[in-house]
C-alpha cells in the first residue's frame, strides 16, 4: 500500500484500534500530548469527521460546531475503541464544556483536561503552566498505573518534534509548487497521521514527502486560514479553478506544527515553554500581537496572493478574529474570501461558483 493510502486509511477510521496501547482521542488544540506519548498511549488528535450526528444531536444544541459533534458521534456510536479523551479547555467554550460532558457520558473512561494559560504576558503564567503540566503528568501516570519518568518525557518530546518536523516538510512542498498529489490529499494524509502521532506515521509522512513530485505552479497562490480546511472538497475546487494552494494558517496544518519543544533540560519546563511561545492563534490570547498582521506576514512567507478563510460554522474563535484579519488583508491588498461551512457540507454549486468567481477576479 502506498504511504498516502495507509495515511488515508487512518483518516477514514480514526477510531480503529491497531495495537494494545491505551488509545486516547485528543480534541484540538494545544494539548501537550507528549505526556500521553510518554505514558505509552496512542495519541489520536481528532479534528472532526464527516459523519451524520445522529446520536450527538441528542446531546448538543444546533449551534455547536460539527467538529465537536462529530467527535462525540464517533464516541457515542460505539465505533470508537478509545480508552479515554483529552480536552484542551482553552480552545473554546465548546471544548471547555465537552470535557465534563465526556466524563458524564463515559464514566468508565479516562478524561484528561488541560488549561492553557490565557494571560501569557503575566509574570505568573509560566509558574502556573508548569504546575498544570505537572498535574497532567501525574494524572496520566495514575491512569497508566506508574510514574512517568523524565527520560520518557524527553523521548516523547523528541518523538513529537520529529512528527511535527515531518508534517512541516510535507506542508512545505505546497509552498514549493504544484505537487503530484492534490492538496486535499495532503491535508487528508496529515489528518490521518494525527490519529497516531508517533514514529510510524512520522515515517509515512516522510516517505510521502519523498515520493511527491513538485512541479511549477501556475495561477493564483492561495493561503488557507481557519481551524481546518475540511471539508476538503473546497481544495479540489480551488485547484480545479486553476489556483495553487501555497500554504496555510490552519490549526490542522502549519499552526500546530510550527513550534517544537526543547529536547534537553526539565521536560515539564520544555513543554510549558513551547506553549508559551506558540504562534498567533484564535484560541490564544495575546496582548502583544494581533492576528491580522500575523496572517499577512504568513501570507507573504508562503508567497500567497490570495487568502481563503475556511471557517467551520459556529466556530467562535475564528469568527471573532475574521473582521480584523480581513481588514489587515484588505490593507495589504491581499484579496480574500470567507467560506463558512460544516463538515458535512458537499462542495455544492454555490461554493464552487464563489471560489471560481473569486479566483477569476484575481486572474
Amino acid at each position, binding site marked *: 500500500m502506498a504511504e498516502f493510502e495507509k495515511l488515508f486509511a487512518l483518516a477514514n477510521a480514526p477510531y480503529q484500534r491497531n495495537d494494545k496501547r491505551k488509545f486516547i482521542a485528543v480534541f484540538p488544540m494545544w494539548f501537550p500530548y507528549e505526556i500521553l506519548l510518554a505514558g505509552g498511549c496512542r495519541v489520536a488528535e481528532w479534528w472532526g469527521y464527516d459523519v451524520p450526528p445522529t446520536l450527538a444531536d441528542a446531546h448538543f444544541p444546533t449551534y455547536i460546531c460539527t467538529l465537536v459533534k462529530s467527535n462525540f458521534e464517533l464516541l457515542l456510536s460505539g465505533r470508537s475503541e478509545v480508552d479515554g479523551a483529552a480536552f484542551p479547555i482553552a480552545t473554546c*467554550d*465548546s471544548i471547555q464544556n465537552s470535557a465534563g460532558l465526556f466524563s458524564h457520558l463515559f464514566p468508565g473512561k479516562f478524561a484528561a483536561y488541560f488549561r492553557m494559560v490565557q*494571560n501569557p504576558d503575566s*509574570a505568573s503564567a509560566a509558574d502556573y503552566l508548569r504546575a498544570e503540566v505537572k498535574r497532567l503528568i501525574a494524572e496520566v501516570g495514575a491512569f497508566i498505573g506508574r510514574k512517568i519518568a523524565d527520560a520518557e518525557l524527553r523521548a516523547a518530546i523528541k518523538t513529537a518534534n520529529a512528527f511535527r518536523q515531518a508534517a512541516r516538510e510535507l506542508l512545505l512542498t505546497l509552498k514549493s509548487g504544484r505537487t503530484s498529489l492534490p492538496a486535499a490529499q495532503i491535508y487528508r494524509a496529515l489528518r490521518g497521521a494525527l490519529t497516531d502521532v508517533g514514529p510510524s506515521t512520522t515515517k509515512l509522512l516522510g516517505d510521502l514527502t519523498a515520493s511527491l513530485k513538485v512541479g511549477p505552479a501556475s495561477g493564483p497562490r492561495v493561503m488557507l486560514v481557519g481551524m481546518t480546511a475540511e471539508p476538503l472538497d473546497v481544495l479540489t475546487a480551488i485547484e480545479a479553478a486553476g489556483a495553487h494552494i501555497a500554504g496555510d494558517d490552519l490549526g490542522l496544518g502549519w499552526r500546530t506544527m510550527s513550534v517544537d519543544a526543547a529536547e534537553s533540560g526539565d521536560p515539564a519546563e520544555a513543554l510549558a515553554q513551547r506553549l508559551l511561545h506558540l504562534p498567533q492563534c484564535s*484560541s490564544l490570547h495575546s*496582548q502583544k500581537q494581533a492576528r491580522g498582521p500575523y496572517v499577512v506576514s504568513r501570507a507573504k512567507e508562503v508567497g500567497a496572493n490570495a487568502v481563503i478563510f475556511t471557517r467551520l460554522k459556529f466556530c467562535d474563535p475564528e469568527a471573532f478574529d475574521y473582521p480584523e484579519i480581513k481588514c489587515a488583508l484588505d490593507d495589504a491588498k491581499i484579496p480574500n474570501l470567507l467560506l463558512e461551512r460544516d463538515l458535512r457540507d458537499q462542495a455544492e454549486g454555490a461554493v464552487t461558483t464563489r471560489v471560481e468567481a473569486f479566483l477569476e477576479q484575481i486572474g
Partner: protein
Amino acid sequence: MSIKIKTTDKLKEMMMVYYLTAKNARHNNGKIAWITSGGPVELALAFGVTPIYPENHGAMVGATKMGGQLCAVAEGLGYSPDLCSYFRIDVGQAETHLGPIAGLPEPDVLICANNICKTVIKWYEIQARRYNVPLIMIDHPFMEHEIEEPAVKYVAAQLRDMAATLETVTGVKLDQDKLYQILMLSRDAIKLWERALETLRSKPTPMSSIDSFFHMAPIVTLRGEQRTVDYYQALVTELEERKAQGIAAVEGERHRLLFDNIPMWYATKFLYQTLAKHGAAVVTSTYTASWSMERDMTEGDPFEAMAWNYLAPYINRGFAKRLDILEGLIHKFECDGFLMHSARSCKAYSLGQYDLAEALTKRTGKQGVILEGDIADERAWSEGQAANRLEAYLEALDG
C-alpha cells in the same frame, strides 16, 4: 394581579443615576473601566475608577428589544450572527451610540475576567484595539471539579499585576485600607443579596426569580458601594414583610421552578405571564445565585480571597459540579420542575444542558423543559414555538 415590589422604583432610579454619573465621569476627570460581569471590581474601585459593564448594558438593550438592531450593525462589520449577542450589541453601540442610554461612555482601560466564558477574551481584545486602551486580562482557569490551589495563586498574582497597571492608568497608589472598606461593602451587599434570594424559599415566594434578574443589576454593577448595601437592605426588608404577610409573587402559586441560564431579556414578561397563568413561579436560578461569596474577602490575603471567589461561579465549573449545584437548588427551593434556556449566544452556559436536564430528572424526579432562544437578540426567538413548549410542559405539571 400580584402586588408590585416597591423597591423596584429605587432600582430604576439607582441604575439611572449610575449610568448618568458614568456618562459624566470624563467631564469630572474620572477614569472609566469597562469590566466583565465576573471581573474583580473591588480592586478597580479602590483606584476610584468608574466601572461599566457592557454585559449589563447588553441586557438592558435586550430588554428594550433593541438587540436585533445593534447586533445587525456588528454583523454588517463582518461579525458572525452566531457570536454572543452581548458582544454584537457592544460593537453596535460603539459604532452608532444607539441604545436606551445612547451608547456607553468610552473606556480608559478594559478589565477582562474569563471566568464566565472565552468569548469575553476576544470581545475585550477587539474593543481594546478599537479604543486603543490597555487591556487587563485576568485569566481564570476553568475549575472542572473543586477549586485548585495553583489556580488561586495564579489568579491572585494577576490581581497584584492588575493593581500595578491601574496605578499607572490612574496615577493613584493602591490604598489597602480603602480596598478593605470596599471588600467589606461588597461582602455585606452579597450577604444581603443572598438573604433576599433566601426569601424565595418560602411558600408562596414573595418575589419571582424573573424579578430577581432585574434586582441583580446592582450586585453586578455596583458591588463595593454603600448605596448597594442600602438597596439590598431595603429589598430584604420588603421581601421579609411580604413573606410575613403571605404576599405572593404569583397568585395561587402551585408550581415552583428553577431557571437555568441567562434569561431571554426581551421576553421576560411573556415568560412571567405564561407561567403565572398556571400558577407557576420561578423561585431560583443558577444565574442570580452566581453572585455569591464562599470566602470572606476581608479575611486573610485579600488577593487570594478574591481569586478564590472569582474562580467559583457556576459558569466556571464543570458538568459534575453544575449538576450538584442544580440539584442543591432544586432541593433547597423545593422546586417541582425546571426551565432551561438554551441560549445560542452562550455556549459556555448552554453546552451540556440536554444531559444536565436528563441527569437532574434522574436525580430529583423533577421534569424540566428546554426553551431555545437567545439572551438579547430577539430575532433568534420564536414566541409561538416557546409558548407551545411551555404550555405543554405546564399542562403536564398541572396534571
